[in-house]
Each structure stands twice: as C-alpha cells, then as structure tokens.
C-alpha cells in the first residue's frame, strides 16, 4: 500500500468536507464526555467512600441490635478491644419549652470516648468534650435553625429537661435518608434512664463502638464470631461493611448514571454510523474516480478510514477533556444529595476507559459503512446505475464485534453476563424491528402507491423508495433515537410516580405509637378533640418465634439444609390482632380467621413475603414466645400487604381472643388537616403522655419530597445530556440527508418547480419519515419500558399519554423543520451554483 499517498489523499479529500463531519464529531464528543464524566464521578465517589468510611463509622467496628449485649458477647468484645463506647439510640418526641414546640428526634445516649476516628464537630467546640459528663444535650444544627434555638435553650426528653450546650454539626454512621426525618440529639448515656423513655414498645437500638487492638485481624475475628452475634440478633459492622453499605446506598444512583452513560454512548453510535454512512455515499463518485485512476480498493478504503479514525480520535480526545470538565460540575448538581462532600479530581482510569471505549465504538460503528468503499466499482465513472450492492461477509464480522463490544460494556455495568446479553439482544431486536419497518414501508409505498394523488404527494412519497432513498437510514436512526429517549422518559416518570404515590391523595399523615393500653381512651378522646379521625388504632404485642414445623429455632439455625431466610427467623415480631383483615390487603391463600374461641387451634395470618422467608405454608405450626409464655399457632391464611398505604402494616396478624392479656402498646393512625393542628396535637400528646411518640408523616413526606426533587433533578440533568446527544444525532442524520436529495431537488427546480412545490415535496417525505420513525420508536419504548418496569425495576406500569404525544409531535416537527431547512439551501441559490458543487 502506498501509505504516503493514502495519508495525503485523506487530508486533501477532507479539506472541503470537514464541516460535513462536524455533526459526526459532536455526537462522539458528547457521548464520550458523558461516559467520562459519569465514570470519573463514580471513581471519585468510590475513592471517597474508601477514605471516609472509617471516619464515618467513627470506630473500627460497631455491634448493634434492638436488645442489650449478653454477658458472653461483652466478654468476646472485651478480648478484642482497647476501648469501647456504648450507645443507646431511640426515636422519641422532644419538647422545646422556649418555643412551645415538639419534634420527633433520634436520641443518642453515649458513654465512652467515641468517636475514635474523625471528630464530632460542635459549636462551641468544647461542647463535644463536655456533654457526656454533665446534664447536657447536643442538638442537630438543622433543627436548631428550624426552631430558632440558641445554645443555652433547653430541650425536654421524656421526663428530663436538658440544657442545649452545643450545636451538632456532623453525625456518624447516618448515611441513610432516615437521618433527615429525625434530627439527632446527643446526651450522656448515664442520663437516658432518667428520661423514662425506655418503655415496652419503645424503638430502642443498642450499639457498641469498638476500637480494636492493632494486631487483630478483624475479618478473621468477624468470620469466627458473626454467627454467635447473629444468634443473639446483634449485627456487626466493620469499616469494610460500612464501605459496602455506602456503596450499596449509592448503587441505584450509580446504576442510573451508568444507564445514562450507556444511552449516551448508544446514541453516539447511531450518530457515528448514520453520519459515516451518508458521508460515504457523498464520496462514492470520488472513490470511483480514484479507483478508475488505479487506486486499489484497500487503499481507497484506507483513505476514508484514516479520515474517520483521525477525526474520531480527535473527537474522543475532545470528549475526554469535556467529560473531565463536566465531572467538576456534577458535584455541584448533586450537592445536598450526597452525605458528604466528594472531592473531585481527574480520574485517569475514567479517562483511559472513555478514550478506549470511544475509539473502539467509533471504529466499529464507522467500519460498517466504510467497508462498502471496498465495493465501489470504477465503472461508476461511466454509469451511476452500475452500483452492485452485495452483502460483504466482513460486514457481518463487524456486526458481531459490535454486539460483543456492547455486551462487554453492559457487562462492566451490570456484572451479569446474562443481563448484559439480554439487554444487547433487546437493543438488537429494536434495531431489527426498525429495519423491518423501513423495508416494509419502501415495499408498501411502492406496492400501494397512490397514483391519483397530487404531484407533490406522489413526488414526496416516491422519494421513500427511489434509488438512494434515505428511508432505512433515517427510520433506523430517528426511530432508535426516539425510542431510547422515550424509554428514558417513561422510566423516569414511572420511578418518580411510584415514590410520589406514597404521599398522594387522602393518606393518613400522623402516627402515634408507644401508647400504653390504659391510655387507649385518653388518646382517642384527645384525637377527637382535635376533630381528627381515628383511621387505625391497633394493639401491638412484641414476640419472638420459638419454633416452627416441629423444630426449635436453635435446631433450625444449626440445620444447614434449611431454606428459611435468616431475616425472617430473627425478626422481632410486632404482632397485632384484629377481627377483620385490613381492607387493602389481598388474601392469597387460606381463610382469614378473625375470632378465636377457647379450646380451638389458633389460626394466624402471615404476609406473603414473610411466609416465603420462613418457608411455611397453610397449616404449618408456629410457636411464639410472648414474653415468656409459649403460644402454638397454625398458618390459617397468607396475605399480600399493600405497602404503599401509610398505615401500620403487620406481617403477622392474630385473631381476637388470644393476645388481649399480653403486655402490649397501641398505635394510633390519624390525619391532621393542617400544620398548626399537627403542632398543637403533637404538643398535647407530649405533655399528657411523655412515653408516646408522634411521627408527623407530613414532615417526612416533605423531606421525602425534597429528596425526590433532588433525585429527579439529577435524573433530569443526566437525561438532559442524553436528550441533547439524541437531538444532535437526529439533526446530524437529517442535515446529512440533504446531500441525498440535493440533485433531485435542483433538477426539479431547473425543470420549473416553484419554491412551494419543492418545500411541499420535501415536507411530505420528511413528515412520512418522521411519523413512521417516531411511531415505531415510541412503540418500542413503551414495550421496552413495560418489560423493564415489570422484570427489572418491579414497578407498577402506567403511562401518561400526553407527554408521549408531545414527544411524537416534537420529533415529527423537528424532522419536517430540518428537512425544509435543507431545501431552503436549494431554493435560495441558483441551480447552477449547486450543480457545480454537487
């Protein structure tokens, strides 16, 4: 091969046509930029999680559960640790005397020198040091601001009023969104008992923060003892676990961002393939001349491959640079959504990955159309029609590589070869359907051609099947682009709807729990005095599963063949009893027994997931330890709980007539009409029943809504990125298609067609293409989102048709407008001028 000539020709040939490849370049730049930005962000996040998990945990290890540690476990911990801090955490109402307000808080009572890593930051600083040794409380800064509290004010927790000695500026271990619902208040551990907040039914968590001897291998220790701690319902969290938890917490955000990266890249691929295809078509004559003058087919191919690959590589480099700049902007967009500040720096890993992936994808998707160059016959210099289009076996090889590359890329995102394969097959199917639609359209228009239609319509429609038509290219690129964007849009809506539904409509907004049995009437009267309805008022009895299907819990736990799940076995059961099955629940199996008569067997009702977790069926025996007393029951029915109702849901329901004398507390669910009444009711409950807690679901919903808004902002920002690339791809395909129609339109003009006729002919062609592509793309998106919602996200599927109609109109209008814009060039200039340039 004559390399110097190839390089020279590649440079010379591209001189006048570089602008034709501008859109090709922009789709690569944006696609790679999205990929690099997202990967950099993920890398930075993972690195920060790595660095910060120790200081977020505050210790080498924590051990926690909803009961205090047994003596044997304490001994086990003592053999390991140099220091230990005990924490008692409970959710409770607090009262702010200076403001006459009350607030649900996460109360933490601490003893010991926690934190061992990182710092508890307070204002003033010394408050962090002194609060444990005196009667003092540190209150979350956000709560202080919300109520206008100052250091020196006081907070009443249960029966004790604490002076606030400091603002709490950070917290440990609270990476979950729940931290936002209940602000933290820290007090000395020795003061918790005096508050008298720990009552039956109180939500109490016990936690030990442990600093471990340096020479101890915590992983080995944990592996040996995890079982022992689990049997006592204690959970061990090491720095390693914390890191995994953090990564887990961000996995959804990661997954979503990865999907956006994939979509951006796919759109860029469509852009590459369609613009190169059309570029090659405009070059066929030059290739034929070069071939005629003696250039070998491989050399001609290499000329254009070099052009594309150099511009592609340049675009990839620009994309990598742009992506690195965007990733500095991402944390600003995500601010508030992250639990801590993520330090952004260039990620060489993401840049290399983006570069390699960008070059690979550009080469593969450009190679498909470029291979056609090898088949351009020099005879085209004599006759345009002598262009034999045969399928090139090498092209199939390229398609195979493309499939493998996309599957590989998906595998790096999903970590599952099966999922990656299924997704790739899905994308391939969508492509084949669009290909089929395009082929059917050209066939159908020719077969059922409306011969009696007007000249303009006939011309416009015949453009769909005439030689050099752009039906296939445009239907596949616009259809795939529209499909991917609509899919993203529908999924985004489905995810947001499913979350928002929780707070919608006439749902209850307040739950009072921890009410003692003898306060039943008092709380009901109080609720009624505020003109609020009693939506639910149910007893709760805590119990433990002691045995089932004839074997004790201990035996089951040591049975290696058991199929029941640990979470179901160890769960502290909060059971209720009622005559009727909750109206929103669905009976799946058996019969609900509402009343128990003395002497009969006791038939209980289980939630479907719980029964599956325990692997029990109708008729199986379950023995419960109700605070010392053993009660034998049988599974009478299995229900499906409606979890989207904001009421108390019980996995286990007993009939009435069994648990009435067991120690129990009550839960009352009501609905407050407005904020002021909520505040007044909350204050009244705290004053009359310090043991009871009021959870204002309204404020939780506000917080939830805040989070949803932030999430949707992120979703919209990233989806916007994809949409931008999609639009550029659409526009590039359409602009490049102009070169297909220019000679025909100029000839028509030369023959006397007036401006209006040219516009109308093009409008008919582009409108047909737009309608068909958008319809097919949207149908594919609806089908795809249904399958994804059902099998991947497990969401209820519903569609709102208006926005989809909007997308349809937008795509058709965009196609027609760009089509007409292309004709403008032909209409406004003299035919001769254009003919010379063609």
């Amino acid at each position, binding site marked *: 091969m*004559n390399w*110097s*000539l190839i390089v*020279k*020709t590649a440079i*010379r*040939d*591209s*001189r*006048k*046509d570089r602008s034709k490849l501008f859109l090709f370049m922009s789709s690569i730049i944006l696609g790679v930029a999205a990929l690099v930005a997202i990967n950099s962000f993920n890398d930075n996040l993972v690195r920060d999680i790595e660095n910060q998990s120790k200081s977020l945990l505050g210790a080498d290890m924590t051990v926690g559960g909803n009961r205090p540690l047994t003596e044997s476990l304490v001994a086990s911990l003592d053999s390991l640790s140099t220091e230990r801090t005990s924490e008692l955490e409970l959710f409770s109402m607090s009262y702010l005397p200076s403001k006459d307000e009350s607030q649900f808080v996460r109360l933490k009572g601490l003893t010991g020198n926690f934190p061992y890593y990182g710092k508890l930051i307070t204002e003033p600083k010394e408050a962090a040091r002194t609060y444990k040794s005196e009667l003092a409380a540190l209150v979350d800064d956000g709560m202080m601001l919300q109520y206008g509290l100052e250091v020196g004010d006081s907070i009443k927790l249960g029966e004790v009023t604490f002076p606030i000695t400091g603002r709490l500026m950070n917290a440990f271990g609270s990476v979950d969104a729940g931290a936002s619902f209940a602000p933290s208040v820290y007090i000395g551990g020795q003061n918790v008992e005096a508050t008298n907040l720990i009552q039956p039914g109180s939500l109490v968590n016990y936690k030990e923060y442990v600093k471990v001897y340096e020479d101890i291998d915590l992983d080995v220790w944990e592996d040996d003892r995890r079982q022992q701690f689990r049997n006592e319902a204690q959970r061990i969290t090491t720095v390693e676990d914390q890191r995994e938890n953090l990564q887990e917490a961000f996995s959804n955000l990661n997954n979503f961002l990865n999907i956006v990266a994939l979509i951006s890249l796919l759109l860029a691929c469509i852009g590459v393939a369609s613009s190169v295809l059309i570029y090659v078509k405009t070059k066929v*004559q*030059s290739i*034929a*001349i*070069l*071939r*005629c*003058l*003696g*250039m*070998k*087919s*491989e050399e001609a191919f290499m000329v254009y491959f070099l052009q594309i690959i150099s511009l592609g590589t340049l675009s990839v480099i620009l994309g990598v640079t742009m992506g690195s700049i965007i990733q500095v902007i991402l944390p600003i967009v995500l601010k508030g959504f992250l639990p801590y500040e993520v330090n952004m720096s260039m990620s060489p890993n993401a840049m290399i990955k983006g570069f390699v992936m960008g070059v690979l994808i550009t080469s593969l998707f450009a190679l498909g159309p470029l291979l056609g160059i090898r088949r351009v*016959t*020099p*005879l085209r*210099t*004599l*006759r345009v029609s*002598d262009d034999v289009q045969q399928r090139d076996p090498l092209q199939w090889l390229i398609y195979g590589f493309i499939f493998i590359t996309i599957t590989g890329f998906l595998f790096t995102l999903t970590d599952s070869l099966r999922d990656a394969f299924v997704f790739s097959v899905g994308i391939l199917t969508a492509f084949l359907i669009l290909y089929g639609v395009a082929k059917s359209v050209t066939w159908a228009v020719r077969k059922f051609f409306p011969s009696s239609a007007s000249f303009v319509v006939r011309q416009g429609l015949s453009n769909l099947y005439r030689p050099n038509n752009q039906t296939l290219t445009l239907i596949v690129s616009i259809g795939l682009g529209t499909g991917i964007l609509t899919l993203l849009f529908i999924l985004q809506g489905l995810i947001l709807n499913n979350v928002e539904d929780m707070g919608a409509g006439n749902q209850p907004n307040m739950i009072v729990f921890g009410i003692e049995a003898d306060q039943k009437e008092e709380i009901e009267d109080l609720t009624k005095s505020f003109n609020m309805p009693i939506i639910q008022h149910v007893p709760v009895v805590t119990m433990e599963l002691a045995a089932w299907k004839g074997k004790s819990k201990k035996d089951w736990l040591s049975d290696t063949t058991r199929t029941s799940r640990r979470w179901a076995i160890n769960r502290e059961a909060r059971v209720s009893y009622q005559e009727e099955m909750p109206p929103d629940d669905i009976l799946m199996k058996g019969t609900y027994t509402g009343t128990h008569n003395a002497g009969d067997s006791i038939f209980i009702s289980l939630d479907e997931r719980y029964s599956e977790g325990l692997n029990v069926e109708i008729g199986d025996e379950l023995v419960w330890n109700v605070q010392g007393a053993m009660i034998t029951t049988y599974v009478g029915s299995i229900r499906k709980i409606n979890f989207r109702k904001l009421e108390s849901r019980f996995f286990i329901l007993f009939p009435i007539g069994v648990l009435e004398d067991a120690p129990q507390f009550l839960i009352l669910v009501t609905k407050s009409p407005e904020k002021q009444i909520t505040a007044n009711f909350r204050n009244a409950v705290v004053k009359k029943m310090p043991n009871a807690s009021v959870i204002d679901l309204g404020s939780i919903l506000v917080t939830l809504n805040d989070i949803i808004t932030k999430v949707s902002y992120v979703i919209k920002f990233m989806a916007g990125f994809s949409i931008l690339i999609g639009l550029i791809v659409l526009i590039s395909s359409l602009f490049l298609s102009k070169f297909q129609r220019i000679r025909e339109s100029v000839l028509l003009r030369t023959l006397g067609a007036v401006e209006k006729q040219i516009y109308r002919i093009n409008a008919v062609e582009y409108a047909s293409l737009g309608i068909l592509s958008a319809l097919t793309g949207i149908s594919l998106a609806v089908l795809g989102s249904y399958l994804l919602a059902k099998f991947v996200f497990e969401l209820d599927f519903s569609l709102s048709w208006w926005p989809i109609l909007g997308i349809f109109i937008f795509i058709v209008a965009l196609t027609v407008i760009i089509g007409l814009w292309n004709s403008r060039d032909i209409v406004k200039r003299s035919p001769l001028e254009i003919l*010379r*340039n063609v």
Partner: protein
Amino acid sequence: MILEAKSIFKTYKGINKELTVLDDINFTVLKGEILSIVGPSGSGKTTLLGLCAGLDHPTSGSISLAGSMISSLSENEKAEVRNRKVGFIFQNFQLLPTLTALENVMIPLELQGRAKGAKDKAEQLLERVGLGGRSHHYPSQLSGGEQQRVSLARAFSNDPEILFADEPTGNLDDETGAIVEKLLFDLNKEKQTTLIIVTHDLELANKTDRIIKLKGGKIVSDQFIKTDAQI
C-alpha cells in the same frame, strides 16, 4: 498490438430475461492507432469502453490490454494496469471535487509512488493545456471547458500507453469543444499514445484513423479511414 478483444459477450440479468448488451465482439488495436467507436444510444459503446479499459469484466470472452490479459486479472491487478498504462477522459470530467486542479493532475503519478517530481510535471501539463494560472482552483471554480482541460492534463500525466475518451466534448459548446479536441489530438501526437474515443459526433470520429460502428451490441462495420494519423 496494444488491445485485443476476443468473443466478448456482456449480458445483464433482467427481471424476466437476460439482456445482451455486447454480442460476440472481436477486434484488435495497434499501438499508436487512433480509433473511434460510434453507434446509437444503447448500442453498447460505453459498456465496450468500460470492458476494454478494465473498469468492468465481460460475461465471456477475453481482453488483452497492453500485454496483460485484463479480463482474467483481479480487481487490484486491473487497477495497477490502469494506473501505469491507461489514461481516461470522461464526458462529465470526473475530477475529484475536493482536490485542486494541480492535485487532480498529480494523483495518477502519486498512485505510482512517483510523488517526487509529480508537482513539476503536473504544473507543466497544466501550463500545456493553458491553465497554468488556475492550478490551485477547485473544480467548482472552473468552467466546463477548463475542467475538461484539467482532465486532459490528468489523463496524460502518467504517460499512458493507451487513452480512453468517453464523449470528450459531449458536455461542451462547439467552440470550447474544438479547443479541447485540438488539445487532445495534439497531446496524443506528442506523447505517441494509442487513443480510443467513444462518441456520437461523426465529425470527431472522422478525424480518427479507424471507426468501429456498433448497433444492438454487435460490430456492424470496422472501417479504416487513414493509414497514418493526419490531424
């Protein structure tokens, strides 16, 4: 002998039946001969030119061009023969639109790997066809006559043994056509090249040594006009 066509058939598959475009064509061309192929539209002139120049392959029969059995060569081997031994002039000029006039003329030499000296030679040829001052213009900046003159310069740039011209003046007005025609014959005489012209123009055909008439894909006459080129 520089070109020999033996029993050439060219057929195309139609929807219902085969279409025979060339039907048993036989002829030879001697070195230095100036030959024209004439005939009505659809008689197979351009197809025959394409086959003889190695742009296409016959359905059956053999073609020997400048010592190579071109009908049995691979595509790349044919390309090499075209580059070293053949020159082309087309009715619609077929210049590369993205290359300047000078670069268009240089291309055949560069394809031979003769980049050194290609520029000088191309400049000389452009000067020879009267376009010395337009060498850096793109085809779209040149008139039809000028484009055809660039095409002439390009055709002679690789010192071909044989030159194929497809309706070289077909797209030009009489005056411009005459200038191009004169240039073509003058250059041909200077370079001692064999010239095969496909044309409708009997006036042009009569200026050649020999006229082959085609009709319905068959040779209907093969007439020698002059024994020596006397233009």
